[in-house]
């Protein structure tokens, strides 16, 4: 049992060691630019990836600014899609499951926005559909993928691929969680640094 536990830890640690620094830096730049132009960030994925997306939205919209919540500092506008179960089921039931992200994205998206797409396989048709829609409007896409990266890694502007064997969802999702937390921490430190003297 202990060996099994250590083995899994080792798998995640070695996947973590391959984090693509430059692509993550590129993603930070996309988010920074989106904040400067007061744009929104849409994030989505299926299953565990959707849970990661929801968790990140809470951290990014609130935790990043936790030291500056009452000071009138302009915050991020991160939105998980779809925003309601009603939209999710309506698009899936009435139009097709491949439209559950692209459909709601089309309601909201403006040119000044950005998109974060999460898919361990990089091949989920509904994720790809939404990414293609964003790119048809030249909205930048940050893609978090695993396995061989799939179509998502080919399309994304910031290609955050955690290369693993096919089907290693637990490993990929663990590292995706780390990267999303890294983004949260980076911008939390950034705003503390930039606003510290006045607002901390």
């Amino acid at each position, binding site marked *: 049992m202990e060996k099994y536990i250590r083995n899994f830890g080792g798998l995640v640690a070695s996947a973590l060691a391959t984090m693509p620094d430059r692509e993550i830096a590129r993603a930070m730049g996309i988010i920074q630019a989106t904040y400067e132009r007061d744009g929104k960030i849409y994030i989505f994925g299926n299953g565990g990836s959707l849970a990661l997306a929801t968790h990140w939205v809470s951290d990014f919209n609130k935790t990043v600014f936790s030291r500056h919540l009452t000071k009138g500092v302009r915050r991020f506008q991160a939105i998980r899609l779809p925003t309601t179960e009603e939209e999710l089921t309506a698009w899936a039931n009435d139009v097709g499951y491949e439209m559950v992200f692209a459909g709601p994205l089309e309601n909201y998206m403006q040119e000044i926005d950005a998109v974060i797409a999460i898919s361990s396989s990089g091949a989920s048709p509904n994720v790809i559909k939404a990414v293609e829609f964003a790119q048809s409007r030249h909205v930048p896409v940050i893609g978090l993928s695993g396995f061989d990266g799939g179509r998502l890694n080919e399309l994304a502007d910031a290609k955050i691929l955690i290369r693993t064997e096919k089907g290693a969802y637990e490993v990929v999702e663990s590292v995706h969680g780390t990267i999303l937390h890294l983004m949260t921490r980076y911008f939390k430190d950034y705003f503390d*640094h930039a606003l510290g003297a006045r607002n901390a």
Partner: protein
Amino acid sequence: MIIVRAPLRMSFVGGGTDLRDFYHMSPGRVISTAIDQYVYVAVNRTPLMKRISVRYSLGEVVDHPRELKNDRVREALLDLGIEHSIEIGTFSHLPGHTGLGSSSAFSVALMKGLHAALGKNIDKHGIAEAACRLEIDLVGDPIGKQDQYAAALGGFNVLEFRPDESVVVDPVMLDYQRRREFENHLLLFFSGIHRKAASVLTEQKANTVRNRETLQAMADSVFEFKDRLMEGDFEGLGLMLQSAWERKKLLSSHVSNSAINGLYEAGISAGAWGGKILGAGGGGCLLLLAPPERQKTIRDTLKKRAAELALHDFQELPVRFAHSGVEVMVNSDHSRMMA
């Protein structure tokens, strides 16, 4: 109504190697950053009013674009086949001809806005190319390509200008600490002298072949500048700016004049490590790299020197880098829905 904005830029080293006469011989290179000062362009289609109305430092109302005095708007409208029923206005916090690339930022925002008005969404590279074509090929300005790319793409980049006209963008990935540290070592002053890049660049362009070695050294120094920046060697960067400025003065007799030299020398003697005139020279903005503890002395010294030189519009401009490039901020056109 469509409202577009594009940022101004500060270039550090490599300016002049983005001229076609140079990069057709070997690749040109520039390291620059967008700053949080913007040129705004508003475009409004007026189906019920046939005339063309353009508002910039002057106002023009004409029946056909070929009658416009503003060369950029005239050539853009003629090229895109927009012959009537449009209003175009431009707005900015800073005056033009400051050496911060405002005229190319205008062209970039204009091309983005006009394409949007036609229901076309062009990506940032495409807009940079369109603005280069407008300014260099259609208007015929003897300028390079760095400003159009800086304004369209935003961020901190090494731009490489290839002989085949392609432009390769290598983003300089600074974290927020290094970025803020660098900002805090920079002082930017508007000299109060407005200058047009074209007057300086015409001579510089004519001298390109003679200046080839100097320009080659400038293009090559971009890598060293980037490395020192990543290491946080701000004194080294200051000294590099100084030697680049010395080299640049050799390119054209118009690059410097006694007023600019007076400000520059005052800055160095007050403790700046180095600096340069932003833009093609002959006026515009003075950029100094200096340790934070000497900045108050430098400010006071320059203010005094500017008064002695009768530079009444001299003023300091706060410096912050910007990530965002050309953006459509508002688009309430119906054509968007059909895109």
